């Protein structure tokens, strides 16, 4: 276990909810937290952002589901998961027993699915808030990626905000695969989002030169890892510049404390560490320590002072 003590005040918030660390897991990159227990103090990190949960259990896609790419990977898992019943019966109680906070990622194919999931999570112990996955690229048609359309995205967020526990902050997870991410950010914030999670994976493709066919069973997949970090950082920068009052949970290729610092300086008040966990299972705790040291070296007394500093 790693101690997360530091001289810098690392406290931050998701919406109105205080958390002790600004470094969280990323949805889809740490399952439901359980497997990280040998490597990370789950109660000390900001929160466990769960793999996206849907109403029903999902098998996910056939294999192969993964291809390594330069400084990243392409995945096509297809949202394999236990469904909301499994999450409520097993995964959330397990996290509660350990004093961990869950930021529950929810996904669906219809607006009503999202609203029902939000309602099912009202008042559930251990649930800190909701990350609304409206941007998973591994769905049957691009028309189902709500985050590519400001109107569709707003419909989902408005329904979730209305159905969700008032104490649960609702974050909209946005896709970088749009022409103008600021317009989507503005639309979902107007619809009631308490914050924004940026970014989801970028849609990508790898072809095997030997078989001369796409590597992934799902043909296309989501690109993640340090390869996408400049894209993610640009999205955070643009949205923070346009909407400085809206809290941002930044993610996309964060591997070190200095990577996380860039997101904070661009306007993120918290960050998620995703693909880096595959490389280093203790990455979430390590990034916290490195970020705290980097802030101290630069004379910041608290994380909050550094949020958006690059714009000033």
């Amino acid at each position, binding site marked *: 276990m790693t101690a997360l003590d530091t001289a810098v005040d690392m406290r931050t918030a998701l919406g109105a909810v205080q958390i002790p660390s600004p470094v969280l897991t990323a949805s889809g990159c740490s399952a439901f937290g359980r497997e990280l227990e040998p490597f990370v103090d789950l109660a000390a990190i900001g929160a466990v952002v769960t793999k996206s949960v849907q109403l029903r259990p999902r098998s996910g896609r056939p294999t192969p589901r993964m291809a390594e790419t*330069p400084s990243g*990977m392409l995945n096509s898992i297809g949202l394999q998961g236990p469904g909301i019943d499994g999450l409520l019966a097993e995964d959330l109680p397990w996290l509660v027993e350990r004093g961990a906070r869950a930021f529950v990622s929810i996904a669906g194919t219809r607006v009503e699915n999202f609203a029902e999931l939000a309602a099912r999570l009202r008042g559930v112990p251990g649930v800190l808030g909701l990350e609304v996955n409206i941007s998973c690229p591994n769905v049957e048609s691009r028309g189902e990626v709500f985050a590519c359309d400001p109107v569709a995205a707003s419909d989902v967020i408005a329904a979730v905000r209305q159905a969700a526990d008032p104490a649960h902050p609702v974050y909209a997870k946005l896709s970088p695969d749009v022409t103008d991410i600021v317009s989507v950010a503005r639309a979902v914030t107007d619809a009631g989002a308490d914050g924004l999670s940026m970014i989801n994976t970028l849609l990508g493709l790898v072809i095997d030169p030997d078989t001369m066919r796409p590597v992934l069973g799902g043909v296309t997949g989501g690109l993640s890892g340090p390869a996408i970090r400049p894209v993610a950082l640009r999205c955070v920068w643009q949205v923070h510049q346009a909407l400085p009052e809206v809290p941002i949970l930044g993610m996309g290729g964060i591997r070190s404390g200095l990577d996380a610092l860039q997101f904070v300086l661009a306007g993120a008040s918290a960050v998620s560490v995703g693909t880096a966990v595959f490389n280093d299972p203790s990455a979430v705790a390590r990034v916290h320590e490195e970020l705290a040291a980097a802030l101290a070296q630069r004379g910041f007394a608290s994380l909050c002072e550094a949020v958006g500093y690059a714009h000033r």
Partner: protein
Amino acid sequence: MSAPITVPAPRAAHPPVQRVVAVRGRRSVNAYVELSLAAPEIAERAQPGQFVAFAVGGTLSAALLRRSIAIAGAGDGVVTVVVAPHGPGSTWLAGLREGDTVDVVGPLGRPFPLPEPGTPSLLVGGGYGAAALVGLAERLRASGSAVTAIAGAASADRLCSVEELRAVADDVVVTTDDGSAGRRGWVSEPAADRIGAAGVVYACGPMGMLRAIGELATARGIPSYVAVEESMACGIGVCMTCVLPIVGEDGRTRFSRSCTEGPVFGGDRVRFADVGTLPWDVVGADAMGVVAP
């Protein structure tokens, strides 16, 4: 499909650790490289059938995914693995020198379940998969089992761990596809000759071989346990990329992770013919739009 005769492999006794460890020794063995790592905490926790996961390329590496390799030996503070260089990551690992350091997580995965003491056992290894059977052979002999081992490969230079198996097994058979060492042909032929005397069968190697050995054992009503070599991104159970269609204790098929629910599965629980597809009766296939025919 009739009810499985195996029980799912139980979890390992100890959780894994992550350590930066030094390479204690390196030697070329045919087409492979055997690395010995000074990793006492992993060595004391390891059980036969488990694996370790390496970060490759150093701290500046653009190759992020862990490389999972079966533990070939563990004892006296040292963990041994056999690296088969085929891509950039495994080639980097194979190029490590004595004194170099590497970040390793382990031991990972579920070990081979051991039979009642004294149960005669047949062990079948394909290529470098034979390395995963050495520690198992030692445990089985120590508990009074007669051990027959079959090691096969495409050619003599692809054989692995034959000497180590000879040192511990009662009988060792070698096969090569091209006849360059031992009997010409596949491991399934000597396996069929010897399986009648076995109370349990273990195998590690390529998927086609595991299928052949698993089906051979199941047809005779003999329990078999196979260690799969699926490619994994993390090795610890968070990435969900290494799944296989596995029949669970309740008889239902799930996409199960080779890292945390395997790599050891009952040979009659792996739906080999369905690997790479999404059969309608996998739990949650209906939510993917796949319906019963």
